[in-house]
């Protein structure tokens, strides 16, 4: 399915017709919601933590220059390298140059929205560097050549049967019957990759400015392997991921797992301060390395922090939209969103789905490209309640809608013109009560004319047609409230 060709309505239609996807989405979101609820119930001070998390992010984002400088300085003190990338291309260029300079031919990757955002794998492949996704869900969609459908569980749209078939086909292994078998195949196949890769590329959940520490949370252990085994670790980190002090982590590390998966804590949390030293007593024996990767130009381990802008400074410049940078990518807003629950992640057309996706995609990709996303929401507000950093997502969606209208970036000029005209007409009538009343009487009369059996039929009016496709609309009976009120006087 070539999602890029269709618009959101088209992609949504495909999603709604996909029975397998519908079952998977319902099951996954129901499960996440109940797990999250239970996890949150175990923290009586949850609201205070949320408020604090928001405050920390607000303070950091408003002083981002200071904290980024501090972070970079600290990482360099640790002996790490810092590269500041303006665009996704810059990131790709750096990783490729680094790989070439060090003779790296394969790279193990952990799940990183930032690297997906910039299609880093694509760039690496084109340059002859083989990227291997190691998170099970990402591994699955890499093999299937698909986009992720959820931030936390990217392959949730696939059944175990589909995955088993995929493995059998691409990995030439036997057809797995149980989920445990699928996992075992991934463990065995990927272990070899971890051991032979010359480089590990990850994202980061948090980057602590005060201590120069990169923090990564996970359940599988693939991040630990990607950062502990290969000699070189590259962390691609959006500039918004920084937090000021080490102790700020405790609030976030309590909020993130509970919000994302309903766990009290993920299986592993890694705190990394630059490159690893050699193990005591072990000689870094470069000459005797028989690894396919060739020699490292240095005998030490390397750590590279790639700080990525890629449009974030544009968001930063907009004081209203700035709070979208507080996001810690937990996925909670997806699970509670009635729209996401129905259409899944791929229908959003890019990397970030759900309410946060509907906000950051237009901001990062541009209004023309993604401007329809903010309109595909009923503005119910469940996302805001679920957000551990208390981002006012409905407010941001409304602000984006206004931006799109002001910029004239709507999809479909004809529809846009009709809508604008209707809205102008409506506003004009609203200011003139007698006109409003008369127009109302006229419309109700017309509605009665096109009604049958007490129900309004569409009669060629597009909006009515869309409504009556799925729902009945009762024909108006009797007068309006104001007419009846007058009569009673």
């Amino acid at each position, binding site marked *: 399915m070539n999602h890029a060709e269709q618009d959101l309505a088209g992609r949504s239609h495909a999603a709604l017709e996909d029975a397998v996807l519908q079952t998977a989405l319902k099951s996954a979101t129901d499960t996440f919601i109940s797990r999250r609820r239970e996890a949150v119930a175990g923290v009586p001070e949850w609201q205070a933590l949320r408020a604090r998390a928001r405050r920390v992010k607000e303070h950091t984002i408003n002083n981002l220059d200071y904290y980024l400088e501090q972070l970079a300085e600290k990482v360099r003190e640790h002996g790490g390298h810092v590269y500041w990338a303006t665009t996704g291309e810059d990131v790709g260029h750096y990783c490729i140059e680094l790989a070439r300079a060090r003779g790296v031919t394969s790279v193990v990757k952990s799940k990183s929205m930032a690297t997906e955002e910039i299609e880093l794998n694509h760039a690496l492949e084109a340059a002859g560097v083989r990227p291997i996704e190691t998170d099970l869900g990402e591994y699955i969609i890499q093999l299937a050549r698909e986009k992720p459908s959820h931030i936390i569980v990217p392959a949730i749209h696939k059944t175990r049967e589909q995955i088993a078939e995929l493995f059998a086909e691409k990995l030439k292994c036997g057809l797995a019957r149980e989920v445990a078998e699928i996992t075992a195949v991934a463990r065995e196949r990927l272990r070899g990759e971890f051991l032979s890769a010359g480089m590990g590329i990850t994202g980061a959940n948090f980057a602590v400015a005060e201590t120069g520490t990169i923090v990564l949370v996970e359940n599988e252990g693939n991040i630990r392997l990607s950062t502990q085994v290969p000699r070189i670790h590259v962390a691609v980190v959006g500039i918004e991921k920084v937090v000021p002090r080490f102790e700020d982590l405790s609030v976030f590390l309590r909020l993130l797992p509970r919000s994302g998966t309903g766990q009290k804590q993920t299986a592993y949390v890694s705190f990394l301060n630059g490159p690893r030293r050699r193990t005591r007593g072990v000689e870094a024996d470069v000459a005797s390395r028989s690894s396919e990767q060739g020699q490292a130009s240095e005998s030490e381990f390397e750590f590279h922090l790639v700080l990525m802008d890629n449009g974030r400074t544009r968001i930063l410049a907009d004081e209203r939209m700035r709070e979208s940078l507080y996001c810690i990518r937990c996925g909670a807003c997806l699970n509670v969103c009635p*729209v996401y629950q129905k259409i899944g992640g791929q229908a959003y057309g890019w990397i970030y789905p759900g309410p946060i996706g509907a906000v950051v995609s237009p901001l990062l990709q541009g209004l023309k490209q993604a401007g329809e996303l903010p*309109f595909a929401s009923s503005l119910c507000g469940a996302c805001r309640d679920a957000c551990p950093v208390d981002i006012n997502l409905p407010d941001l969606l*409304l602000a984006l809608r206004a931006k799109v209208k002001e910029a004239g970036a709507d999809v479909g000029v004809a529809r846009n013109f009709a809508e604008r005209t209707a809205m102008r007409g409506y506003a004009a009538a609203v200011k003139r009560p007698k006109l409003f009343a008369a127009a109302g009487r006229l419309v109700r009369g017309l509605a009665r004319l096109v009604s049958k059996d007490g129900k309004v039929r569409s009669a060629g009016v597009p909006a009515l047609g869309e409504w009556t496709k799925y*729902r009945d*609309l009762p024909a108006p009976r009797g*007068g309006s409230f104001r007419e009846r009120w007058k009569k009673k006087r």
Partner: protein
Amino acid sequence: MRVSLFVTCLVDQLFPRVGEAMAATLRRLGCEVTFNEAQTCCGQPAFNTGYRAQARAMAEHFVRVFERERADFIVAPSGSCAAMVRNFYGELFHAPGDEEWRVRLESVRTRVREFSEFLVRELGVEDVGARFEGRVTYHDACHLLRELGVADEPRRLIRAVRGVEFVEMEAPDTCCGFGGTFSVKYAEISNSILQEKLARITRSGAGTVVANDSSCLMQIAGGLSRAGSPVKTMHLTELLASR
């Protein structure tokens, strides 16, 4: 206690009995009820669709109409319309030159209430002497719940109605899928969300579903009717006016 009715454009034009029921109950409870017929629409449709200029024009009209009302409270049978004025009008008048408007807005904004929050929090009333036989469930309209924080009050009012057997549906606080123009712009998605809500309503075993928002009721009723369901919808004002 003087109440000025904020009937909302939807109730005025399509569901007048909802407004009449509200007025009847308020009178029965001893309120002096007025209706300023210069009112039209609070501007929410324009605001939610991104038409700020039009929304502002409609808001100015609203303020002009209601600042003239001497009433203690301005009461609406809709959480989303009440929330529009209370929570979102401020944004339409935030520019430096809007000082005078902000003052005028304040005198109106602080008096606006949704109907159930008015009865319970302002009048201190839960039992309005209504009677209705049947099993009733309640749908939490999103803006009423999340913008105004009203969840408990409608339930207390419903439970106090003689003859009512109140049952909670699963996840009553999930969206019905209306969302204003979303319901026609993304009709297929809107309907798929609606179907979930209808399934929960059916599973509750209730014969009537009550809500405080005519837009939600229009969506739910439209779906129930299309499905040929015997379940009825009723606005809270209509339930409380039942005798």
